[in-house]
């Protein structure tokens, strides 16, 4: 087995809940937005990270990129733990990591500077990483635009003149500007229309094959996850509850939350057999997470032990791990 390109080990991000005093604030509680999450991605693979809002999937991505500082755990990229690098002050080492690890944002309306033309936006990564090759910038920008299906003259335009799909193409081009190895895609298609969604998904797949990229694909939309991913990880209330190769997860989900999640997706087929597992209640707030298995209050198969002990993530099948005391 080859070395994993990205290996996240026991990653946690806890936020203190502050009560405001007159001048100082004091800690009243703690939100465990990401709690002890571990997974790895092999080169060339796509890991789909799924879960409902507030489950910590975006925070995981932001902690990997050090947009938020992880509270604990390690993030190894190509064998190197990058958390201490970002803590330190070695700008060169930081830039080397930034260069190979890029992020594509959910909302292409917000992730582009409205005052910059597309060309200026694409020039920024080049200025930071390829400052000494200024003469090659223009050619690179043209290549990037072509790569994501735009035309060279689009470089003169401003974001507000583009449709959502085109903006997302620009977001992808910016991330690809410095030839990264891993792309973190945070809900890249959820704000787009159905017909445009397919175009962007195809583009992502095509670029992955062409450039040998590795993806971490974050989404709540399981159908796009099924399309693009090779592996899927499911999060619930800051915990990773199940991880498996994509077809295994969709065919034989082991965790009761995964099963409920899959069955809740409306299938575009009016005759589809309705074997839905109706979930009772709603996701509790991450501030008062239930003890034991975080899912037990909503779980039909909960055992007494579920409310006491937190189930560890254990092997369930080939490449299939899940955290459940009473798997299906």
């Amino acid at each position, binding site marked *: 087995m080859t070395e994993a390109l990205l290996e996240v080990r026991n990653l946690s991000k806890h936020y203190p809940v502050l009560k405001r005093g007159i001048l100082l604030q004091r800690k009243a509680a703690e939100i465990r937005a990401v709690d002890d999450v571990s997974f790895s991605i092999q080169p060339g693979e796509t890991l789909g990270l799924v879960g409902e809002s507030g489950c910590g999937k975006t925070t995981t991505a932001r902690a990997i990129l050090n947009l938020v500082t992880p509270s604990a755990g390690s993030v190894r990229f190509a064998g190197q733990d990058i958390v201490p690098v970002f803590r330190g002050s070695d700008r060169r080492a930081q830039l080397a990591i930034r260069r190979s690890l890029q992020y594509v944002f959910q909302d292409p309306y917000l992730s582009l500077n409205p005052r910059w033309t597309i060309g200026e936006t694409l020039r920024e990564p080049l200025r930071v990483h390829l400052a000494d090759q200024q003469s090659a910038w223009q050619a690179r920008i043209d290549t990037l635009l072509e790569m994501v299906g735009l035309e060279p003259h689009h470089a003169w335009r401003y974001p507000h003149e583009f449709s959502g799909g085109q903006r997302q193409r620009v977001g992808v081009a910016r991330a690809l500007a410095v030839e990264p190895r891993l792309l973190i895609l945070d809900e890249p298609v959820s704000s787009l229309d*159905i017909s445009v969604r397919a175009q962007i*998904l195809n583009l992502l797949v095509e670029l992955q094959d062409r450039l040998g990229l590795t993806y971490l694909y974050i989404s709540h939309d399981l159908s796009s996850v099924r399309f693009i991913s090779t592996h899927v990880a499911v999060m619930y209330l800051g915990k990773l509850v199940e991880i498996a190769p994509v077809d295994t997860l969709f065919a034989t989900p082991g965790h009761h939350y995964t099963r409920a*999640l899959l069955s809740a997706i*409306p299938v575009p*087929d*009016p005759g589809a057999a309705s074997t839905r597992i109706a*979930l009772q209640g709603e996701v509790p707030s991450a501030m008062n997470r239930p003890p034991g298995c975080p899912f037990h209050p909503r779980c039909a198969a909960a055992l007494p032990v579920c409310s006491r002990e937190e189930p560890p993530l254990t092997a369930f099948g080939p490449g299939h791990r899940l955290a459940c005391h009473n798997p299906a």
Partner: protein
Amino acid sequence: MAEPLLSVEDLKVHFFTRDGVVRAVDGVDFAVNRGETLGIVGESGSGKTVSSLALLRLVPPPARTVGGRVVFEGTDLLTLPTKALGTIRGRRIAMVFQNPATSLNPIYSIGSQLGEILLWHEPITRAEAEARVISLLTLVGITDPAARLRQYPHELSGGMKQRVGIARALLCNPSLVLADEPTTALDVTIQAQILDLLADLRRRLGMAMVLVTHDMGVVARMADRITVMYAGRVCETADAATIFRAPQHPYTRALLDSMPRIDHRYTGGARQVLPTIPGRPPNLLDPPAGCRFHPRCPDAIADCRRILPLETEIAPGHTVSCIRRGSQGIAA
């Protein structure tokens, strides 16, 4: 065949902007029978939401309904005096909104904002109103409704708020409910709960529903009949099974094909590619002549550029507006 509960004929809503007239809804027809759920699907800008707002004359300026008829239980809502419309709006036709967080007034308790509506519409006492609100909150699956009456919207979760929104719509026993993306703002598992609730209520109360959404999965689960809209016009209307199994309009087909499916294997062998619709929806300031879909249509012929297709019944209960499928049309 019985008279439909609601029939919309040649509805036109235009936005009068500084840059010109945006023909957001441009000659739309559909009908809803008693007790039936009609799903209106389309992408953003297809005019689905504007059409549903126009039914109750709720289109905001700079939009204006410039033509058509909306016949509900025998009366044309577009020509009705405002006062008479008030007795229908919220009473005979109720609305469920997309965003439960903003559709409830944050400064009134649940009990008072629901109670006020009843007292406004019906000659009943406060105690009767409260009893009815409690029974409705129970109906929409809210536990301990008596206690919820005194709570404020911010104290409820998103799913609960949407349940309250549904209870509010049902207060006056409407015969038609307009639901505009009622589950889009909710998480998947909560969405499933709300959809189940809506389906169950519709069965039990026998009301008709217009469900406006962009989610093909949602209409597949909920709708009896489906109307597909594109760029302010109707492409195709048929019963749900036909739309999904034997769609006729090229746009409907392309739309269904372009969606990734969770019940489909994409791994193994060569990487798969989703069929896509090339290009993007037209600018409605200056829509393409003829069929509005023709620039993106794989089946387009020269005539499509010239002839505006009209909705034509090609099989019982199945209307299509595409000249390649035998629709009539008018030359531009």
